[in-house]
């Protein structure tokens, strides 16, 4: 089946079973931004169906959770493409909306533990069961997972951190190791401790690392700013090799590009810090002339993954 056949097959019900969404993300015969467009379209339809049917139970939660994972992964996979192929801001807006829906639905489903299913779409109902079986995690781990995404997507926000803490009432209750890890990453970001931040990030599962990737340039720039002041006396030279490790870059080329984009001189394997010269602001807006977004630097371990997109999305 090619792309168009699947569309026609599903267009009668206007519903895309979630398991089909997952398998479509593995397609390699099309450029992945086409896959993104198609799946994004289907997710929007599902979300509209949720609104029309006023669903707020497990089916709605299922769709929104899938959407969050999909948008997180997509941002990592496609940022660096020209704006007309992928709009990171739009993707981020949709991610935020779905994330807030997940948190709200989790809250509502906690207070109303027996929510009767109002869904009259058999495919949607069946897909929910598939989603739960495939995900293979309990309710509390899933809630912690999405609180983790919320904190990472809003990295550095004291309000988000406060919400997590007031939800769990105590730091020691942060369910499972992962949410505690995310909380510590947020703390490292607020303290400017990038070495520990990247060290902890490498311990996160792939999708959570995608969430950190949303802020990768901001984190690295803050780090360079701090280092420019701390190491910048009398134009000192700092080895790029060490900087690559500290800032979680793939290779020397990536870190060199980044330093130069920030206005720092690089030569003979070192970057020159100087307190008298301020760093250039990074241009993270959509480029005006269709040029690709610069500074696409992957986090090393994730870059080396052999997992298929569907495996990452279903957390297998």
């Amino acid at each position, binding site marked *: 089946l090619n792309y168009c056949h699947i569309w026609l097959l599903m267009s009668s019900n206007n519903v895309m079973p979630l398991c089909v969404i997952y398998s479509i993300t593995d397609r390699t015969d099309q450029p992945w931004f086409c896959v993104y467009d198609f799946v994004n379209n289907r997710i929007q339809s599902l979300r509209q169906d949720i609104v029309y049917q006023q669903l707020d139970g497990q089916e709605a939660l299922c769709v929104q959770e899938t959407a969050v994972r999909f948008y997180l992964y997509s941002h990592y996979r496609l940022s660096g493409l020209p704006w007309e192929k992928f709009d990171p801001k739009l993707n981020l807006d949709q991610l935020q909306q779905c994330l807030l829906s997940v948190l709200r639905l989790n809250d509502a489903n906690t*207070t109303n533990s027996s929510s009767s299913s109002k869904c009259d779409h058999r495919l949607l109902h069946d897909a929910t069961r598939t989603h739960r079986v495939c995900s293979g995690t309990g309710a509390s781990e899933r809630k912690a997972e999405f609180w983790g995404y919320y904190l990472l997507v809003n990295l550095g926000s004291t309000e988000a*951190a406060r919400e997590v803490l007031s939800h769990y*009432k105590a730091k020691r209750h942060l369910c499972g190791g992962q949410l505690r890890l995310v909380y510590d990453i947020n703390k490292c970001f607020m303290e*400017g*401790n990038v070495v520990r931040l990247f060290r902890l990030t490498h311990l996160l599962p792939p999708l959570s690392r995608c969430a950190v990737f949303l802020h990768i340039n901001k984190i690295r720039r803050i780090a360079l700013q701090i280092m420019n002041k701390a190491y*910048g006396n009398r134009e000192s030279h700092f080895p790029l090799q060490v900087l690559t490790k*500290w800032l979680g870059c793939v290779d020397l080329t990536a870190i060199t590009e980044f330093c130069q984009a920030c206005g720092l001189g690089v030569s003979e394997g070192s970057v020159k810090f100087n307190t008298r010269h301020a760093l250039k602001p990074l241009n993270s807006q959509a480029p005006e002339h269709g040029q690709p977004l610069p500074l696409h630097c992957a986090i090393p371990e994730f870059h080396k993954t052999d997992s298929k997109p569907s495996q990452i999305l279903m957390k297998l």
Partner: protein
Amino acid sequence: VAVRMRIKLIYCGVRCLEMAYVAVNQYFQLVESALEDGDGELLAELISYRHPHVQNEKLRVNFESQCQAYFQPPFDELFAAHIRCIIALSERDSSNAFACQLFVVQSFLKAFQAQKEENWGLPVLAVVTRDLRLFALEAEKCMAASGHKKPADVLERAADQIMSCFRVCVSDNRTVVERSKRLGTLVLVNQLFKIYFRINKLHLCKPLIRAIDSCDNLRFSKAQMVTYRYFVGKKAMFDSDFKKAAECLEYAFNHCFVTSQRNRRLILIYLIPVKMLLGEFPKRELLLKHKLEHFMDIAKAVRKGNLVLFSDALEKHESFFIHFGVFLILEKLTIITYRNLFRKVYLILGTHQLPLKAFEDALRFMNVEDVDIDEAQCILAGLIDKNYIRGYISHQHQKVVISKQNPFPVVK
């Protein structure tokens, strides 16, 4: 007039509790005289649910016809709703009580808005909006306990109504100051602050703060100013504007009524962390006096640069700190703890060129998990960037060179 004076004298002579048992007519006559004389203070008392007339069961019989007999619209409907609210309260029906009180506020606002160049109704507005907020809180708690999906709606509705009252007051800018309704804005703003903090919508406070800050020529009561500064200080703290937070919270603490122990303690819970971030630590006596021993170990740990004691102290009282929303602010003290620890390293080694290994060892000694020399450098770099240390790091020589003059400036 003579009859009204006699009734007022009788009222003053009657002890409070007796109001629970006097004839219904006397209550209505008092209200009528308050309305006719424009006596806002008396009317506020008579419409408050803290007043003993609320216990008078005789009031709950045939009240609709009595209200119509005594009062002109909208006060007839207003007092009918007030009595319905009393009945709802006696039946512990908080949702119904809230709905009735909402009607009371709406009706009163109509009458209040129609009073041109007068503001005698301000005490009444303060009381009815206060009661509206309290009933909304109670209704929200009951809804949340019974598993209702949107308990916060009731507080938002209360806020919307109080905001309508605020708009009426704030737009009265052509009347002389003494009779202007603008004198009532601060009471309403404080009510709104209490709701917005409760429903965690702090961004809605900003336009209110701007409105009050532009009321330079108005003199508000000290009690209301203390409440206002408390909330503004708290918001500033959450916005990480610690200097402003300290200024406002200090004002609130210094001007708070001396016997309001609960309020003074509440102000201190926010003032102490803010002051610690600005380098000032609370005295032991102050903490003991206000039963805030929770901060004692934190202050001691930060001063001594003891990371172990600091994290233990945070963990020991984390539920208390999280409940009041100060946990994250206290966590920010980690950086100052690092600064004090590193200052000790400098004092011990007695040199201005300090090996990075010494800082790594100090952090390891303080049980910082998996710390290495890279992280030690990173933390040092952060301290230099924030001007807690004056100096620079030489990666080549693996040393930090600190200034000979004032290498560890006072934390401000």
